[in-house]
C-alpha cells in the first residue's frame, strides 16, 4: 500500500473517486442482470426500471467526472495519483457506456412480443450475459485492489464472449432462413447479443485502465479477438 499524503484531504479526494467508481460498478452489474432477466421473462416493468436505472448511472458518472476535474485543479496530482484520477475518469466512462447498452437491451423487451421465443436462443444470450457479468465483477475487484493478475485475466477472457457472440449469430441466421417470421425476433436478439458483447469490450477497457494505473504504460501485446461476426456469412452456418 502507498503511504498517506501529507495533505490528508488529498487521500480523501482519491478515496471518494474510487468509491464513486465502485458504486457505479455495482449499478452497472445490476443493470446488466436486470436487462437480461427482463429479456428472458419479457418483463416490461423490469425493463422500465432498467431504463430508469441508466439515468442514475449517468448522473453518477457526471458527478465522478466533476470530482476528478476538481481534484486535478486543486491537487495537481503527479505520477500514480494522476493515473488514479485519469483511471477513475476512464473507468466511469466505460461503466456509463455499459449502462447505456443495458438500457438498449431493456428497450427491446417491449418489441419482443410474439409467438416465436425459442428458449434455447435466449439461453444463449443469458449465458453470454453471465460471462460478461463475471468479467465485470472480476475487473471491478481488480480496480479496487489494483490487481494486475486479475486485470490481465479479464483482458484475455474477452475472447470467449466474442466467440459466443459469433456462434449465436450463426444460429440466429439458421432460424431466420427457416422461417422469415422469425426475422424480427432474431434481429432484436442479435442486437441484444451484440450489446452484451460490447459490454465485454468495456470490461476489457477497464482491465487496460487498471494495468495503466499500476504500471504507468499500456499493455504491450495485441489483444486476442474472437468476435468474427463481421466476417460470418450464410454459408458459415
Amino acid at each position, binding site marked *: 500500500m502507498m503511504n498517506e*499524503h501529507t495533505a490528508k484531504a488529498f487521500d480523501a479526494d482519491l478515496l471518494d473517486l474510487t468509491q464513486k467508481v465502485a458504486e457505479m460498478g455495482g449499478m452497472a452489474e445490476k443493470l446488466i442482470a436486470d436487462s437480461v432477466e427482463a429479456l428472458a421473462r419479457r418483463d416490461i416493468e423490469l425493463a422500465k426500471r432498467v431504463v430508469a436505472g441508466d439515468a442514475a448511472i449517468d448522473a453518477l458518472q457526471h458527478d465522478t467526472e466533476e470530482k476528478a476535474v476538481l481534484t486535478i485543479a486543486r491537487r495537481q496530482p503527479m*505520477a*500514480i495519483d494522476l*493515473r488514479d484520477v485519469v483511471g477513475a475518469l476512464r473507468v466511469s466512462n466505460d461503466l456509463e457506456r455499459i449502462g447505456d447498452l443495458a438500457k438498449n437491451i431493456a428497450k427491446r423487451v417491449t418489441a419482443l412480443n410474439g409467438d416465436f421465443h425459442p428458449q434455447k436462443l435466449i439461453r444463449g444470450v443469458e449465458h453470454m450475459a453471465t460471462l460478461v457479468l463475471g468479467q465485470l465483477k472480476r475487473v471491478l475487484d481488480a480496480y479496487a485492489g489494483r490487481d494486475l493478475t486479475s486485470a490481465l485475466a479479464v483482458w484475455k477472457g474477452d475472447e470467449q464472449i466474442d466467440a459466443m457472440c459469433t456462434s449465436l449469430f450463426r444460429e440466429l441466421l439458421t432460424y431466420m432462413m427457416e422461417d422469415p417470421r422469425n426475422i424480427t425476433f432474431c434481429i432484436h436478439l442479435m442486437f441484444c447479443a451484440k450489446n452484451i458483447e460490447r459490454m465485454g469490450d468495456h470490461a476489457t477497457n477497464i482491465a487496460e485502465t487498471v494495468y495503466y494505473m499500476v*504500471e*504507468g504504460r499500456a499493455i504491450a501485446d495485441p489483444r486476442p479477438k474472437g468476435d468474427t461476426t463481421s466476417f460470418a456469412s450464410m454459408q458459415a452456418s
Partner: protein
Amino acid sequence: MNSMVQVKHSEAVGAAPGIGVKPKVIARDVNVYYGEKHALKSVDLDVPERSVTALIGPSGCGKSTFLRCINRMNDTIPIARVTGKIEIDERDIYDPTLDVVQLRARVGMVFQKPNPFPKSIYENVAYGPKIHGFARSKAELDEIVTTSLQKAGLFEEVKDRLNESGTSLSGGQQQRLCIARAIAVSPEVILMDEPCSALDPIATAKIEELMDELRANFTIIIVTHSMQQAARVSQRTAFFHLGILVEEGATETMFTTPRDRRTQDYITGRFG
C-alpha cells in the same frame, strides 16, 4: 563513460548520460562536507548541454549544495570541503590552476531573491562585461546591455529608463534583470537557485518562458521546490534526498513513472 563506476558510487537509478546529448557538466563521486556534516554523498550526474535540468528534493537534501559546487560557490564557506570531480567541457573545475573568477563568468548564477546592485539598470548589466573587459567601446557595451536585456525579456519594459535604479523595478523585473546581468558575460551554464520562489505567478510564468528560450543557447540547472515548475521547464530531473542523488532521468518519466519509491513519495506529496 564507465557505468560500473556509477553503479558503485551512487544509489541513483539511471544516472546514465541523458538522452544522447553531449554532457556539458559531468559530476563524479562528488561529496561535500560542512565540518563534520556529510551534506552530499557520492553524487554522479551528467548534465546535457543546451537543456534545462531540474534538481528537486526536500529542504536540506543537498540540491543547493550540489548547485553551488558547479561554480565553486562552496569555496566561499570556510568549513565546506568538496571531494570528487566536476568537469565542464571535460575540464576539471577543481583544478588548482583554474581561475575561479573566469569559471564564474562561464557559470552564471541567479539567486532565490532578486539581488540587483544598487545601481542603474544599465550599470547592473554593464558591470560584468566591464570588469571582464568584454567591451572595447561604449557602443559595444551598449550593444551587450541591449541584447542581454532583450534575451532576458526585459528590454521593452525598461528601454526608456535605463538610468533608473535596478531596485526600482518590480520583483519579477528585478529577477529578469539579474538574469540579464548573468547572461551579459556570455556564460555557458546558468545556475538558478529557486529563481521564482519570491515571485508572483505571472512573473514566474515569464521567467519560465524565458528559461525555455534561453535553453537554445545555455545549459540551465535549476533548483526548485515547485514540482510543477520542474515538470514544466526541465528536460531532465534529478531527485535528491538526505544528500543522496536518488534518481535522475527524463522529466516526463520522473513525473509520471518514477522508478524509486522515494521519488514517487516525494513528487506525490507523501513524505512524512
